[in-house]
């Protein structure tokens, strides 16, 4: 009896969860534009008018997780979100004392000034997701 109840409640929950994700989640299946970890380090860096722009995709974490960049030039991190609802929306850059809430979909720049050589890391508000930039 006991086991039966437990199994039934797990099944009901699984059905509710699965059903809802199936029906709502497929609304816009086509615009799957988040390239998880596909970016190769270095490809996400653009140098423009003597400024270094580092692109970071934000959804369920930060991609790429590790970037190798140049030290000694003014640097901007450009965060790109696309229907991002999770923790990674709230970015923290502990070494700069910066916290920023990103829009659900869009692009936002954070100016981190002229980078000095060394490792730089950012994390989400909960500390669950993080990314690293190696300046050298």
């Amino acid at each position, binding site marked *: 009896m006991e086991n039966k109840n437990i199994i039934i409640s797990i099944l009901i929950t699984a059905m509710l*969860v699965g059903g809802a994700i199936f029906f709502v989640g497929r609304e816009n299946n086509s615009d799957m534009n988040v390239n998880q970890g596909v970016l190769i380090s270095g490809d996400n860096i653009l140098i423009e008018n003597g400024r270094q722009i580092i692109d970071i995709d934000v959804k*369920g974490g930060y991609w790429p997780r590790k970037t190798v960049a140049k030290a000694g030039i003014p640097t901007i991190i450009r965060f790109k979100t696309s229907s991002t609802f*999770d*923790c990674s929306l709230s970015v923290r850059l*502990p070494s700069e004392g910066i916290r920023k809430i990103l829009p659900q979909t869009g692009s936002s720049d954070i100016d981190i000034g002229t980078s000095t050589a060394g490792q730089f890391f950012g994390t989400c508000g909960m500390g669950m997701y*993080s990314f690293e930039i190696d300046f050298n």
Partner: protein
Amino acid sequence: MEDNQKIIEDNISKISIGMQKTFTFHISGMHCKSCELLSESELSELPEIISVKANMKTSKIEVIGGFQDENQESIAMRLTEVLKKHGYTISLEPIGRIENIWSDFKIALPIAFVIIASFFLLQKMGLVNLIYSGSTSYGTIFVVGIVASLSSCMAVVGGLVLSMSATFASSGNKMIPQTLFHVGRLISFFILGGLLGAIGSTLAINSTVSLILGFVVGIVMFILGLNLLGIFQWTKYITPSMPRFISKHAIGVSKLNHSLTPLFVGIVTFFLPCGFTQSMQIIALSTGSFFSGALTMLVFALGTLPVLALISFSSVGFKDKNKSRIFLKTAGLIVIAFAILNLLNALVASGFIRPIFNF
């Protein structure tokens, strides 16, 4: 006055049934301050008992009453019968606990490991990428709620729910506190979400506050988790609970503790550091109206309900004492793992340490 008179008469009649004697028994299964009160009040209902004094520290219970010629062993059995539903056992000799604890862990450890591993696996699979929808309709918000309850919010809110429900389950009270928690959560999400919509940024969730809350919850969860394992006696004394003098005056035994605590915890979950909750709060903020803000947070809370309800009511099914002991140990291990994860995450987010886990 009349009441006193009646009590005195009652006591006289009790004494006249048989000689009034004092017995000291061992009691096992007590895990919190309110257990003392619970067992005392249950036993004092018995007609032959005049007074009871339970002591959690020494695991002893002192009973004064008129038991006629009944021998100690049968008294212990009869008292156990009364307290069985709360999981306490009264015996002449202290019950050897150590050996059955290790056999419990043989089962609890693998189960806890599988559950924690599947949680990490779900994160690695990129569950959040299931949410594609560009517009934030209520349907999307509901799905965000479901995904939240299966991912990062599981570690914080789910861990808290599990530790709370397992703690209440072990003190015999199952359905009511859990239900109150969920009711408190739904109502507070509706009202606070509405306030966010109406008043706007004045109520915006301060990240320092949520970080501090994250620390506090991590520590509370860790203590509750240790307590559920039941190996360390000292954790009993640091379990957060209502002071005895308050709960004693409340209607019934620690009823207050059992109904207000879960309700309050339900409300607090609004402020816990869960990324999904926070991004929903931003949406609620941007709606600019009480009703839309309230509905946004309510729909999100409803999305998290199936999984959270499953976690909290998982403790109800165990009537078999062995199974429920294993359940409590498993819950304890999972809660401790989540507590450590939450504390580490809070340290990372505040910049004290470098990231350790990366999902």
